[in-house]
């Protein structure tokens, strides 16, 4: 009986691990959230803590955080993918280093400093935080788009040209399609980065979970800081998980 069950088990293994692996991340995230909730409910919260740690505020801050992340990433897509394509063209080889340097600079400059500088120009608020986030997250998408397009076998491009496809058709039907996995990987990195960096939005009054972290630190209320930090981390993990699913679903079949 046992032997039979084992045999059935081994025969099925090829399909199983991948299916289960996809469930590990959400299960871990759920466990972390439940633990956090259980721990916070054991605490005697004072009035200051209660002002932060209630459902309305937590939902509010989480929504703000996600809004910042999604808006920034959308802008990154619009900016970085076209720039990556421009940088990947060999006839633009003089512009490519400029684009890459700008992208590198965006990531090298401390985001907090950038946010402060942006405040002088744009004042405080959502749009300022957005500028900082976009500048910070452009590089991975830009770089991956460029590399994804450049790594395509030149024989494919030659075949496409030899068949009479126009430059636009080659870009849309061949190059971008084949660069999809690389672009998605870059986007996934950018999203996760953005979730983390969006906590800094609190410094320019853009809200988000960073507000909990900063308030907790300022008022010396550890539980508030911890809730903010754990929630941010959980969102980052969750988005990374979604990104992984998207990569699997959207990558062209056949490659």
């Amino acid at each position, binding site marked *: 009986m046992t032997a039979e069950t084992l045999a059935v088990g081994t025969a099925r293994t090829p399909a199983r691990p991948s299916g289960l692996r996809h469930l590990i991340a959400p299960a871990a995230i759920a466990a972390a959230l439940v633990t956090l909730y259980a721990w916070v409910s054991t605490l005697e919260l004072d009035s200051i803590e209660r002002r932060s740690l209630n459902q309305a505020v937590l939902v509010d801050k989480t929504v703000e955080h996600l809004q910042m992340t999604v808006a920034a990433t959308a802008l990154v897509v619009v900016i970085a993918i076209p720039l990556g394509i421009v940088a990947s063209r060999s006839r633009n080889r003089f512009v490519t280093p400029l684009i890459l340097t700008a992208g590198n600079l965006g990531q090298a400059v401390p985001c907090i400093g950038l946010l402060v500088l942006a405040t002088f120009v744009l004042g405080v608020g959502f749009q300022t935080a957005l500028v900082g986030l976009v500048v910070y997250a452009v590089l991975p998408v830009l770089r991956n788009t460029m590399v994804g397009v450049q790594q395509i*076998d030149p024989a494919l491009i030659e*075949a*496409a040209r*030899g068949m*009479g496809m126009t430059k636009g058709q080659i870009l849309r039907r061949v190059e971008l399609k084949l660069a999809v996995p690389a672009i998605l990987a870059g986007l996934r990195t950018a999203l996760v980065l953005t979730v983390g960096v969006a906590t800094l939005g609190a410094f320019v009054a853009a809200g988000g979970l960073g507000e909990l972290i900063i308030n907790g630190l300022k008022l010396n209320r550890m539980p508030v800081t911890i809730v903010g930090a754990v929630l941010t981390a959980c969102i980052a993990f969750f988005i990374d998980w979604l990104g992984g699913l998207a990569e699997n679903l959207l990558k062209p*079949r056949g490659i």
Partner: protein
Amino acid sequence: MFDRDPAGVRIELRELTKHYPGQPAPAVDNVSLDIPAGELVVFVGPSGCGKTTTMKMINRLVEPTSGQIRIGGQDVLGLHPDELRRHIGYAIQQVGLFPHLTVGQNVAMVPKLLGWPAAKVAARVEELLELVSLDPGTFRDRYPRQLSGGQQQRVGVARALAADPPVMLMDEPFGATDPITREHLQNEFAKLQKQLRKTIIFVTHDFEEAIRLGDRIAVLRERSHIAQYDTPANILAAPADDYVAGFIGQDATLKRLALLRVEDVPYESPLPDPALPAVAAGATLREALDTMVAHAADRCSTPSGVITYAALCGAVGTAHEQAPEEVTAGDR
């Protein structure tokens, strides 16, 4: 365009030159060549001799510096390059199948670019896969990486033929396969070409391949200068110079024998002789010679008669002292 007649059109190259900027000498220097309609012409020459560049100027993947190209009498340099290329089949050594598209979608690419209706495209894909001996039901929905090298090359040829272009350019299309698969593909392709009669320019550095497939061979030296342009038999019989002779190698006569079939020489007697070593009908003279040498015989039997060693010598035009006597004697 020039493909109203899909059975092949004449290609004329006139004083064609390609000079890359910054290079001391042109890559292709003043080439003039006529390729008759419906013939397969092989450009053969060492690596870097400009044969591929010459070929690529015909579909303008390389823009000529000067000169003229006419296909079916029409000046190619006056046409839009993308539009031109849709009417010229193109197959390359690396095949270049799109990995994210199925075999069917790959083959359908050019007809779709030309705006064929979907039903016509689907029927054409079916027809082409059958033409290159791939079962449409099995292969249409597969992705290129699921195919063997030889199967990919077949799809490459099918894709080049897709819109039934009168002209095909092929750059070592069978180069990336193992020798057995290559020979198989070459034989199939030769058969296909007999039936289709496209005007084909075929680039290779493999002289054997050139002999096997070409109606004519252009032996090129550096800068694409034409050392000799003639039929395989004539080049083997009378190489224009040492360069061409060097390209042929030491066994020119054997190669000529390989071009001829046992049916091409006069029979000593019109009946097969079971006492003699036998070769199959349609065998090449090279195979007949092989059989004779292997059995230390001076004649062998084919299903339609007996051929002699002297007849082989006669076929390649070399005198054999006892030949007249032997042939007339007719007995052993």
